[in-house]
Each structure stands twice: as C-alpha cells, then as structure tokens.
C-alpha cells in the first residue's frame, strides 16, 4: 500500500474569490498581517501498489485527467510508503 497526498491550488494570476473573502474576514478580525490567502484542495489517496514509479506515473495521470483542471489549477503530490 502507498499513500498519495494531492494538493490542488488555484493558479497564480487566477482570482480566488473564496480566498479573498476569507482574507477579508481575517482582516476584520484583526489579523491584519495576512497579505494573501488562497484556498485549495487536499486529497488523500490510498493506492493498492508498492511500485513507486508506477504509482507516481498514475497519480500524475489522475491529476491531469480529473483531480485538477489545469486551465485554472496547479497540482502537486507526495507519495509515502
């Protein structure tokens, strides 16, 4: 078994209205130091394989095909196990 952790974030340059709203909320609470806030997605995948190279290649394909929309999002992943 391996564990893949996938992070999907909105590309720099693409407006993240959710992040802007949350940043505004933090400011109004007195957390003035927050100069930028971007919201993304965190996914945990358990993989039925021990072949690291294969896992890596397949997780990449999952990200490209479904988990991220590369028009507006970036992704990165970590593999453990």
């Amino acid at each position: 078994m391996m564990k893949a952790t996938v992070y999907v974030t909105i590309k720099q340059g693409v407006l993240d209205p959710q992040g802007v709203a949350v940043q505004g909320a933090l400011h109004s609470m007195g957390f003035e130091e927050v100069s930028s806030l971007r919201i993304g997605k965190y996914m945990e995948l358990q993989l039925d394989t021990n072949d690291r190279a294969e896992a890596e290649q397949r997780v990449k394909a999952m990200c490209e095909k479904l988990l991220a929309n590369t028009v507006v999002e970036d992704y990165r992943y970590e593999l453990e196990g």
Partner: protein
Amino acid sequence: MKFAVLVFPGSNCDIDCYKAVEETLGEPVDYVWHTATDLSAYDCILVPGGFSYGDYLRCGAISRFAPVMSEVAKAAEQGKYILGICNGFQILTEAGLLPGALLRNTSMKFLCHDTVLKVANNRTPFTTDFSENEEIVIPIAHGEGNYYCDEETLARLQENNQIVFTYSSNPNGSVLDIAGICNERGNVVGMMPHPERAVNSLLGSEDGKRMFTSILKAWRDTHGAASVR
C-alpha cells in the same frame, strides 16, 4: 430535425430544455441518459443546466467522463449542433470541447435574475435570428459562471469571433463580460444564461426562443427541409 436533451444525475433544467424545443419548434426531442453510447440519431444535442454529480470536485468535472460524453465529442467532430447551458457549459469546458473554465462568481453569491445580453456574434448557427449587437433579456442562475481563460486563449477567441454573448452589466466577474462562447467551427456553443427559461412572455422574456429557431433554420439550410411550423 431531432433533438437530444442529455440527462445526468443532478441535471435540473432538462425538462425546461425539452419543453422549449417541444413548444418553440415542435420538432422531435428525446431525453438521453448519461449512460447512452449512441447519439447518431440526433442533429442537435442540448447539455442542460443543473448540478450534475452534485458539482463534486468541480462543476462538470465528473460528468465529462460519462459514457455519453465521448459521443458528444464525436457529434461535435461531425459538425452537429451542441448547446451547453449553465452546468452544460461547465461540462463542455471540462471536456475540452470549449476553451477556458468557469470559476466562482467574484461576489461569492449564487445569482438568479434576468440579465441583459449583447449578441456579439449573430453568425453562429445558434444566433442568426438575432441582429448583431442586439440586446436581449435572458436569466442567469449560477454560483460558478465567472468565465476565465488565459490571455492567449482570449486573443484567439476575439480573433476568431468566438465570443457569442456578453453581459451588458457583468454579474460574475467573467473576462471581457463573456456570457457565452463557441468553438472555432461555431457548431458548439456554451453559455451561462438560460435561453430555455426565456421562451414565453409569461416567463418574463421570449428572447431565448430565437436561439432555438436559429438552430432549426441552420439545420434546414444544410438539409433542405421545408416544413415550417
């Protein structure tokens, strides 16, 4: 002319689309379930609005892998008419049949009201019954209708006249006020506003009707059919 209205789990504008075709055109129309693997019988495919697959992950991200979507790609390739409305537009962008993506409205609000649209291109098969730059009233109902594409894609859209509708007053933050676009060939259109909800003055507007009459006219022009309702 035969119409298909696709139905995904979570579609909720499928009946409106069906009725718009039935009542505006009187042409045959079928509901087609997302598992269908053959669309060869249809001349026009409507991808309706709603919340297919609960908008999980991203709007349209899961629906685009439904079996019927490879048939939609095939139909697009064959030059058949494909209209994606609201969630249908999101599905078509996720499927790569139209460029760009739909992001969360900048206001973070779900917007549900009439909008004034400008017909930016009246030479697509979907818009010939409008005059160029005509202002029409069509309602929107979306939380994620903020059209985005990179500069390069945007330049290409402008160059090829692929911007079909723009908002007179931008409700959602979309680039260049874009409300609807088409592919390069012009046979695939995606738009956030709902023309199928504007087909009777009782609904507040009947400007949407002319999208449907345009499609029928385009089909007749290429198929030499003469019957008129």
